[in-house]
Each structure stands twice: as C-alpha cells, then as structure tokens.
C-alpha cells in the first residue's frame, strides 16, 4: 500500500506523535503501508519553507525505499526557483506540496503557474492539501480557509500537462472536480483520507464519475490516525482489482515509480 498523504516534523499548533522517520516507519509497518509520500509539516508555518525541506531531506535520507519526499515550495517567497532546483536535484523530491492559503497566495498567481509548470518540466507531481486542520479547531492566531475547489480546477485547466494529487478534501462531487464530463484534464487523483465510503459514499461516486484510476489511498498520518482510511478500504464495495488500484497502482503510475518499486513485496521496517 502507498500512502500519498503523510508528513514528518513538527506542526506549529499541535503536538504530533509518530512524526520522526523511525516512528512513522513503525506506524507504517504496523499498518502494512509500504511507502508514503511525505513532506515537512513544519514547512507549513515556517516563513522560509525551504528550511522544512532541508529537515525532511535529512530525515528521509536513509529510508528512500519507504519514503517518497515532496518539497514544500512557496512561490510568493524569495528564492523559490532556487528552492525548487535544490528540492529536485539535491533532495530527490518527486513532487511538491502547495499551501496557497497558509502561504498567502492564489493558485492563479503568475508565480504559482510558473512554479507548477517549472515543476512539471522536471516531472514533479503537484500535491495540494485542501486543508491542514479542521477549521473549527484552528488556533486563535490563524483563520485559514480550505483551498477552493474552483481555484484548483482553474489551475488544472491552466496546466494540463501537470499531474496533481489532491489530499485532505471532501465534497468533491459537489464541485467540478468530482463530476463527470467536467471539462477538466484527467491529470489529477484524489485521496480518500476525508472521504466517505458509507452513507453518502463519496469514494463510490468519484469512482463512478471519474473512473477507478482517479482515487488513491491517503491517510494524513501522523496528523490523522491511519486507521479510518484503512477501514474505508476494507468496507469499500468494489472489486479487488479496483481496490488494488487505489492501494498502490494508481499512484505508482502517476508518480512513475519504477516497476520493481511498484511491485515490491512488503519488506518490513527498513533499518
């Protein structure tokens, strides 16, 4: 199983557990999660996000078989082109995470479009967490809304050759992102971390509307317990082939993971 929605490091407003590489690996082992896309939790609130990327690079260095690092780059901050180059060429990032609301820019800003295109030129995937925390529990110091789905859809139209992973979102089926014939390029996948498979069953609706290859496994650990996402996979009423796609194949294809990595059997803790 590949988790597209994981983090390492500290978060400014809440103590996280399992947020060091060895701890997260143990958590992954206990849940049979072989690989995880990780980015720096600290970079969400650092003014200079690149410092978080440096911490992440150091943390994942010895565990590259398990962690797929994504850099956090802020296109509204000085030196982002250098940060992108370093994340890719020195840190080995496979993608970027964007936090437009936390970093105070719009996805339609020219610098953001330039960043996304430049990342895509390097074959990097763009991940957009729609939220970090439930807004009702945010610190009194901040008031950060979720990223608007229309804004994301517009970015996808602007950058049809880019590849996107949307995480920590819900309510897609009430927006163009989750609807059939939405006029958008099929250049994005959606993680299940905050979706339902019961009652409203948004996962089932997305599979029907977008296709089974557009849904991927993500938990949000260690912000979130990984188990709700695992329980969803257990009770999701689809074929085993579709489940296997959600567990790993869909994202392995999107991330262009080497075949050996995509098919690698579960090896346990890499220490």
């Amino acid at each position, binding site marked *: 199983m590949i988790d597209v929605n994981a983090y390492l490091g500290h978060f400014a407003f809440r103590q996280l557990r399992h947020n060091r590489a060895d701890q997260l690996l143990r958590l992954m082992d206990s*849940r049979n999660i072989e690989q995880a896309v990780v980015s720096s939790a600290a970079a969400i609130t650092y003014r200079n996000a690149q410092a978080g990327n440096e911490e992440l690079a150091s943390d994942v260095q010895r565990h590259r078989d398990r962690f797929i690092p994504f850099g956090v780059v802020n296109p509204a901050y000085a030196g982002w082109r250098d940060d992108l180059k370093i994340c890719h060429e020195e840190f080995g990032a496979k993608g970027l995470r964007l936090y437009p609301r936390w970093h105070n820019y719009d996805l339609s800003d020219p610098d953001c479009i330039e960043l996304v295109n430049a990342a895509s030129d390097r074959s990097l995937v763009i991940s957009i967490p729609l939220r970090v925390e439930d807004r009702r529990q945010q610190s009194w110091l901040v008031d950060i809304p979720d990223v608007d789905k229309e804004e994301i859809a517009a970015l996808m139209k602007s950058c049809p050759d880019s590849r996107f992973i949307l995480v920590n979102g819900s309510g897609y089926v009430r927006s163009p992102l989750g609807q059939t014939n939405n006029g958008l390029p099929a250049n994005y996948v959606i993680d299940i971390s905050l979706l339902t498979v019961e009652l409203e069953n948004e996962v089932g609706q997305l599979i029907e509307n977008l296709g089974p290859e557009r849904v991927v496994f993500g938990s949000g650990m260690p912000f979130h317990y990984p188990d709700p996402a695992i329980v969803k996979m257990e009770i999701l009423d689809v074929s085993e082939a579709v489940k296997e796609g959600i567990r790993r194949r869909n994202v392995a294809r999107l991330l262009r993971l080497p075949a050996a990595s995509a098919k690698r059997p579960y090896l346990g803790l890499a220490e």
Partner: protein
Amino acid sequence: MSDPVISRRALLATLGGALVTQAAGARTRPPSSTPRARVIDCHAHLRHRSHASWRDDDRKLIEAADKLGIDQLCCSLLTPVKPATAEQFRECNQWVAEGMRRFPGRVLGYCFVNPGYGREALDEIRRCIEDRGFIGVKLYNDYRANEPVVWPVVELTIKLRVPILHHAGHPTWLSQPQPHMSDGGHLVELADRYPEAMLICGHLGGGGDWEWTIKALRNGASVYLDTSGTVIDEGMIEMATRMLGADRILFGCDMSMTAGIGKIRAVTLAAAEKDQILGTNMQGLLSRRGTA
C-alpha cells in the same frame, strides 16, 4: 444482522506498541458485568423526513453499522432549522419511535427537546421515556448547559435514570457559528450542580479544539465524553483516555462511521478498555433504567 466486514476481533486488536495504561490519578470505575459487550454508537441520527431519501438513508445507516460491526445506534432526529418548536420536536420524536419499530433492537431512541418549552418539553420526555421506551434525552444548542432553563430537564432525567447527550464543542472564536453552544466547561458546571446526572459531552471529534475539551472535562468526574465526529486527529483518543479514564469515554460516530470505528481501532489500549469504550460504558448507563 449480517456478518460485519470489520470483525470484533479487528476492532479490539491492539496494533503494535505497548498497552496504554490509565494515568495515575485517573478515576477507575469497574466495568459493568455483562455477558457480552455490545458495540453501541452513542451518537447517531435518523434522517429528517423533509429529505425525500429519508427511508433509504436510514436503511443505509443500518447497513453501514452492519458492515462495521456496530450492534446498536442511539439515535435522535433534529429539525433542520433550529430552535425547534414543541410541535417540531414532538414530530421528530414520533419519527424516531417509528425508526425504533422499523429497526427493533438496532435503533435506540433519544428524545430531542428544546428546554425553552418548559412543561411541553418535560411532558414530551416523560412520554418518550415512560411510554415509548426511549433511552435518553438529546439537547442541542438552544441553551447552554449551565443555564437555569435546562435544570428541570436535568432533574427529570435524574428521576427517570436516563442520560443526556448534549451537543457540545469548543470552536475558536474566529469560527463560532453557534452562540449558545455548550462546551466541556459548561457541562462540568452542570455536573457540579447535579452530580447524579448522566451527562454525555457530544463529539470530541466534531466540535473544535478537542484538547481544550478533554482538559475542561478532566475534573468533571460524572461527565462522559463521546468520540464522534469527522475529525480523526491522531492521539485524541489516547489523550482522552489518559486524562479522563477509559470508563468515561463512549464510542460514537455522529454519522462519520469509518472515522468513528477507525479512531477506536487505532488506539493501543487493553482489550478490556476498548470494550468499555465501545459499549460497556454505555450499557452501564442504559442499565440504570433497565433499557440496556
């Protein structure tokens, strides 16, 4: 009830790591002795009939419970627009009574009232508990839990020996949409006045700053905390258990079913403590009136 997809064994499994023990000083109450601990969702809702799909939606709720190994759902039915009038809350309770008949043994009913209706609210509670077999009272955000208008309702539930599930939460001031919403502090204040009342603080995972809520409840020994809500933050159940004791935690979903089950399955607790959270504690509350 069909075989669940999520087995009880999986629910109770301790996944890696050492068992979490209760913190020194946490209140310990022996679990109720029952032949088999049921899994009871202490916070659920049936669909208001203004939704054309209410019948299907209620059926889907039971089907989801089947898949997830949830034996019983304690349900209320609230008006879409609040505050509810007496006529409206009576109508809601009538529909809950019908749901209890439609899904016997699976749906347990909370009687929803607006305490501002005084005698009408009290009469409705008596009718639901004594005549219709409801198991408790549901209060929403019409008044804060510590306001005197609520006291007669609490006194009646003490007399009837039934719990109150109170909508609660502590959102930050920036996103306060419910000016009369109670938080853990209000419930503790009410519990100080009525220590014999069975008070349940609603949705740890759906009411804002859950760390605040847990700390606020720490010294309100008679207040229970339900785990329901969409928020699945890692560590929330462990912190609640450590600070309040497993005997004060009640499993709930508030319609976020996989979130509710996933949270409990995630924590490393002794099987007996998970049993308490999943159902034994709620069974203990229900047994006080004999509705367990």
